[in-house]
């Protein structure tokens, strides 16, 4: 939590010695608050003041890195309760849990299934970003052997075990990959923390109350563990939601350090619907990592999409590249529509064109990520631009006719577009939902 200038002023020596280059300590405090100066410039600041200021500069929720190399995932570092207050910064790690008690064939199958949980939707690649390995067998060698197999996925791993011996055995084959160790309890905290500190791996602490978690994070930190996460045990879904909400609130608004760590949630209900229900809830609300026992694409894809959506930055419209898109097996005679490069607008249009099963071209005009009506109102969608696009080589090299379907909302542009481009203008439906019918009924007659 950032300190205000007056709070900082209280920590300064108040001697107005000018050594820092500022006329007064208060002026220096104001510069510090705006991050335009460093406390190192003050020759007489106490160690206590330095510690407090450094603490205040740190993010309210720690940034935790799981894994090493190009696929490492960073979670935490969140600053707000609601995405509309700013944005959520780091999407949760989402992954499936592979138990270590599968026979060889089943394990091969599960690892392969986990490897397939990568998707391409609305122009973006999304997929699971972590994978849990659970020590169900209780055996160290079996656990390590399974970890070695799962390691081939190349994803950051979460080592899920109750005993330090088992964790140590697994770390023996993957410590360099910087797995997340899950989870230290009050009883095992010393041993787990020692392992995490030695191998510089992130560690999850677990307890059944926030007080218990706060105690363990302090303990693990004192034992030299640098990056920590928390998981609540034994709670109902609303109980866990309650705790995660309070922890987030205490960390981001009250600056409580001992709870300033991302949370890990596991969803393992055998009922698939409940499992998806719980996992999706915590992707939306405050989890830093969500691990589920599910591994079928139809269960995982929606979870990943919740994360993709909730973690977009509400301050920036999402855009697609302005160019000529082809939907289906187009020919030079296929219809040509145009729309704007606001991602939501484009993908809605694309979805409807696709649903019509009429192969078509969609021309995307750069409107700085605004929708059709907004762009038109703000002069970001002009007949000149549309004409330039229609007569560009991109279009003329692919489309043999000269008929363009324009969004119904900008029917008033018809005349100007016709004049500027020489193309015949067909006014399409106002809403994308009418496109399918339009392409099937109006276009063939046009």
């Amino acid at each position, binding site marked *: 939590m950032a300190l205000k200038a007056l709070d900082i002023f209280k920590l300064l020596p108040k001697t107005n010695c000018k050594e820092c280059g500022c006329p007064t300590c208060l002026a220096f405090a104001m510069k510090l608050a705006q991050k335009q100066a460093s406390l190192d410039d003050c020759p007489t600041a106490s160690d206590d003041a330095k510690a407090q200021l450094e603490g205040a500069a740190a993010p309210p929720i720690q940034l935790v890195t799981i894994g090493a190399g190009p696929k490492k995932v960073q979670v935490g570092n969140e600053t707000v309760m609601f995405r509309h207050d700013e944005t959520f910064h780091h999407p949760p790690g989402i992954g499936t849990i592979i138990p270590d008690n599968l026979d060889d064939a089943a394990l091969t199958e599960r690892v392969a299934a986990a490897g397939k949980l990568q998707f391409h939707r609305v122009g973006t690649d999304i997929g699971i970003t972590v994978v849990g390995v659970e020590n169900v067998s209780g055996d160290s060698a079996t656990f390590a052997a399974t970890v070695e197999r799962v390691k081939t996925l190349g994803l950051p791993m979460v080592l899920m075990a109750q005993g330090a011996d088992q964790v140590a055995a697994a770390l023996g084959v993957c410590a360099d990959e910087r797995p997340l160790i899950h989870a230290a309890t009050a009883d095992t905290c010393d041993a787990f923390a020692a392992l995490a500190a030695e191998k510089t791996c992130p560690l999850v602490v677990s307890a059944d109350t926030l007080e218990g978690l706060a105690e363990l994070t302090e303990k693990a930190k004192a034992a030299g563990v640098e990056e920590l996460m928390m998981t609540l045990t034994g709670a109902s879904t609303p109980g866990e939601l309650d705790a995660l909400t309070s922890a987030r609130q205490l960390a981001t608004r009250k600056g409580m350090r001992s709870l300033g760590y991302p949370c890990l949630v596991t969803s393992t209900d055998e009922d698939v619907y409940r499992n*998806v229900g719980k996992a999706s*809830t915590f992707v939306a609300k405050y989890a830093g990592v969500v691990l589920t026992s599910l591994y079928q694409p139809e269960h995982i894809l929606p979870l990943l999409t919740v994360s993709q959506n*909730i973690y977009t930055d509400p301050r920036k419209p999402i855009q697609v590249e302005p160019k000529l898109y082809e939907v289906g097996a187009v020919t030079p005679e296929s219809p040509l529509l145009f729309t704007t490069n606001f991602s939501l607008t484009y993908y*809605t249009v694309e979805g409807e064109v696709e649903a019509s099963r009429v192969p078509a071209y969609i021309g995307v005009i750069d409107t700085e990520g605004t929708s059709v009506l907004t762009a038109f109102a703000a002069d970001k969608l002009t007949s000149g631009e549309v004409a330039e696009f229609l007569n560009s080589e991109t279009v003329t090299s692919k489309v043999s006719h000269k008929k363009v379907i324009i969004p119904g909302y900008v029917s008033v542009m018809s005349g100007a577009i016709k004049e500027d481009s020489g193309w015949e203008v067909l006014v399409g439906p106002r809403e994308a939902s009418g496109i399918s019918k339009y392409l099937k009924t109006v276009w063939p007659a046009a």
Partner: protein
Amino acid sequence: MSMIDDGREQWAASVNEVTIGATSEDGGTRGSAVTIGGAKALPFIPSEGQAPRKPVVAMEVFDCEPPADWPAPLLEALGDVVKSPAEWAKACVEQFGAEMICLTLVGTHPDSENRSADEAAATVKAVLEAVDVPLVIWGCDNDEKDNEVLPKCSQAAAGEKCLFGTVKEDNYKTLVASCLADGHAIVGLSPIDINIAKQVNILVSEMGFPLDRIVMYQTTGALGYGIEYTYSIQERGRVAALSGDKMMALPVICMVGQEAWRAKESKATNEEQPGWGDEKTRGVFWEITTATALLQAGSDILVMRHPEAVKALRDHIDTLTA
């Protein structure tokens, strides 16, 4: 004081309660009424004092047969009942567990079957007779036609305290007058814009329509297709309501099914998207997840389409409110 209590937000106000459906005691014929709203805190925070009312799961029924391009898994799950609105509604309530029926008058649209106001009113009556849960009655989204059809439907359902949708900034007077006369509640439409939502609520209440009979519809974005806009608008609205903004302290309805089943992820066949998983259930999970996410933003009525999704969502709400 525990840390959980310590970290809890203190809210100043609550969301209005709205009751839909009139039992015989209230001059209607519904077996029971539903009351929504009343939230005093963010959704599903038990120790903050659970909201007095659970979110309600409604199912959507058309006044005509669904178009052939509805995804096969959805049509198969509903079966032959879709040939008759009354049968369809009955199956939703008796077999699928719908707590309300949302009768959408798609067939009245001039581009659809262009059914008359009298036909629509007859359908409303048939559905009221077939089921005894409260009804949502939704127009075809053609202002002119809705202004002709909805008043007749309002009359046909007089005294049943249905929820009629929708009124908007530039078309509200006709429906507000009807609902006022016939004792119904009303849905105010405002496409992802808090100021328009407030404006609609002000316009409607200025006609003497009580705020505790208005439900907001801020339009619903499906998972993957704009849910983040709906999510944040609803969440902002809920935070405003709890902070004391009376014009935002109204419950919210979400049209989950109709949006979720338009998504490519719900419609694509295995052949089209071999890596996306089972085509038979993919849409069901898409619908469920759209709903579970929106519940976190503060939703009071969720209008669904697939029976399995309804069952799963009701169970999820029970878990969250246990």
